[in-house]
């Protein structure tokens, strides 16, 4: 019986930035370390804006894992596809054939689909991620008897399309990152949806706050934001709240922004908002021990890797109240607070910055939560159980050396 597990994300590589992509990479690498036979099937694209074929076609190796790359095809700029996209966003009723036409044209890879169907017997299971791409929909519908979907589901218009309900029910099951994501999926797709909470494990990496401060010339207390800077992630809201806070309090506080994407910094606050852009992995870990607190304003998170990593270094977190996953994290852990409006944001900043002891206790509570809820041993065990249960006796494998 084949043992190899194929992960199928739309993009894969060291330079690829994104939550689902990071999750797949970390999980695949951890399984590889534990002796599981793992492969990646993906497109040649590096960015999710143009889906241009960047990486060479064929076999590659990333951190010891074999990666098979196939040409990406997208028609997302086609007027007909745009029209369908608008209808999806407006939550208008659409025939299934139109839904399929839309998702198939976001990004797909006929060559990869051909490979998956013709080599289905060579793999024990295919793990597709995330739900919202043609590669996932077409791929999982082509081999449903071996398909699992790491959904990374958000409460959004796309998630209500019947084709995704059909896809997740056809597959062997869905793999969720957190309990709130699972609850959302059951609410949208039905209580009978087969799925397991697997998530991702977290290990602390060395962090040197002084090195971060020296390298980037950052002094004093600062609030850290890490991730893509775009309206969908609520970065403009954070900048606005932060500026209003400084305007009203006159506090000597900085906001350090890291990550890719454009961000508007108001002229008057240029000295208080430090935009570092894309930073290295080492700088990212260093920033956790340099910052006073982390802010995660996004309402569309299915796990929030950044928050969980920051907690490993005892950083208290402020999150948006409308993100069920982040809110659940802080409520269960005690590692931070949530805000739903400016007044709460203002009071919470005052509270955490004015009470170093409380900040420290929140950070410690966050760390304890990550260490107890997200150790790799547990994640891998859940992953193995999901595969065994999902595939049944016919697909039960040795599962590496976990």
């Amino acid at each position, binding site marked *: 019986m084949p043992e190899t597990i194929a992960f199928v994300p739309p993009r894969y590589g060291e330079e690829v930035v994104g939550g689902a992509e990071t999750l797949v990479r970390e999980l695949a690498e951890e399984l590889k370390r534990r002796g599981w036979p793992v492969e990646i099937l993906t497109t040649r694209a590096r960015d999710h804006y143009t889906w241009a074929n960047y990486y060479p076609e064929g076999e590659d190796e990333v951190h010891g894992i074999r990666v098979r790359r196939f040409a990406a095809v997208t028609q997302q700029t086609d007027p007909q596809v745009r029209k369908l996209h608008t209808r999806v966003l407006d939550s208008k009723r659409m025939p299934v054939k139109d839904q399929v036409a839309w998702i198939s044209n976001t990004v797909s890879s006929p060559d990869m689909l051909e490979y998956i169907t013709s080599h289905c017997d060579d793999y024990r299971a295919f793990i597709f991620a995330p739900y919202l791409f043609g590669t996932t929909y077409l791929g999982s519908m082509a081999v449903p008897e071996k398909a699992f979907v790491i959904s990374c589901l958000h409460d959004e218009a796309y998630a209500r399309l019947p084709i995704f309900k059909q896809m997740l029910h056809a597959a062997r099951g869905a793999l969720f990152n957190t309990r709130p994501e699972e609850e959302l999926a059951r609410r949208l797709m039905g209580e009978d949806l087969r799925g397991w909470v697997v998530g991702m494990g977290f290990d602390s990496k060395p962090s040197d706050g002084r090195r971060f401060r020296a390298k980037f010339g950052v002094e004093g207390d600062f609030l850290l934001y890490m991730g893509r800077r775009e309206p969908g992630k609520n970065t403009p809201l954070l900048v606005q709240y932060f500026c209003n806070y400084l*305007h009203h309090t006159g506090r000597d506080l900085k906001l350090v922004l890291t990550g890719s994407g454009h961000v508007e910094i108001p002229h008057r606050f240029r000295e208080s908002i430090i935009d570092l852009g894309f930073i290295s992995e080492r700088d990212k870990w260093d920033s956790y021990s340099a910052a006073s607190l982390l802010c995660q304003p996004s309402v569309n998170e299915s796990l929030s890797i950044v928050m969980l990593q920051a907690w490993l270094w005892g950083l208290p977190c402020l999150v948006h109240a409308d993100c069920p996953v982040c809110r659940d994290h802080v409520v269960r852990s005690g590692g931070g*607070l949530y805000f739903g409006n*400016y007044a709460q944001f*203002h009071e919470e900043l005052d*509270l955490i910055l004015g009470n170093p002891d409380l900040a420290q206790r929140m950070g410690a509570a966050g760390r304890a939560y990550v260490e107890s809820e997200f150790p790799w041993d547990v994640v891998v065990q859940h992953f193995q159980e999901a595969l065994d249960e999902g595939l049944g006796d016919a697909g039960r494998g040795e599962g590496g050396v976990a």
Partner: protein
Amino acid sequence: MSLAGEDVLEIEDDTIDVERIMARINQRVEERRASGIYDESEIESIMREVPPEGADQSISDPLHELNFVVRLASLHSQVSSEYAMGSGRKFIGPVIVFVKRVIRKLLRTYVDAVFSQQNEFNAYMVRSVQLLQDTILAQRERLGPETGRALSYRLQREDEAVTESLLAPVVELFKGQESVLDLFSGRGGFLRAARAHGLEASGVEPDEELVRLCQEQDLKVLEADPFLMLGAAPEDSLPGVFSADLGERIEAGELTWMIGALGFAMQRGGLLAIFNHNATDPEGRAALLRDLATRRPVYPETLRSLLEAAGFSQMRVISLGSRYLLTARRP
């Protein structure tokens, strides 16, 4: 105002009960809302404030200009048929506006389809340029400051005293010149020697740290990219130019371009002095090899042919041990 240390909510509980803390925060918000500290009415206008004219102007980094243009492009990337309509005609104005609105309504289906495509195209173009910016910044990050000019000049600190003693006769050559420009002025060795000899000289240096170092010594240095500065200099505008290590840390093509630009921008009869490492001397070669940012030694013969091609004449090469001095004039 709620400055640090003032009127701060106290949470003494041993375990952190987030919902309980939130209840206290919400209660506090209700109590303090009337004081106006949560007012968000002003922030909208503050966020839209435009920098005072000239505040953002710098020729040191072309990305500043790119940032500005991308910002403008983002602001104007959305086009729509929903713009305000009016008429300057006093009496029949309302009728004209009415007719315009009717025409717009009739054409909207067709026009909006075009606008929709245009908006999509604009969004992709803005995004493409933003990605380009991100790529440039990521590359800069990878190159890192430690392979930059500041490191080079830190390494050279040890032979600084020797170098400065060699610079005294070089300064003498410029006596009588109206002013001298030091391209890539580094730690300001030439500028200090010029000041000691009463010579009017100023420098151009792209590295912020080196510029600060010079400015702390009251040396006249502009933080700017020498390529951009030379590219913008009018014909016959520079009476004298000095440059140390010319071509040793830049691309070959950039050196050729720079000498061509000097041939255009220097005044007729103006003196150009190049003070480079002498790779035939063991000390000079060692200084070059120590420096991570050095790409190649530039031999005087190479410079001669480049200067000749750029129209310079009266070339002289003087060996100064670890350094050599090449002088040339624009005929």
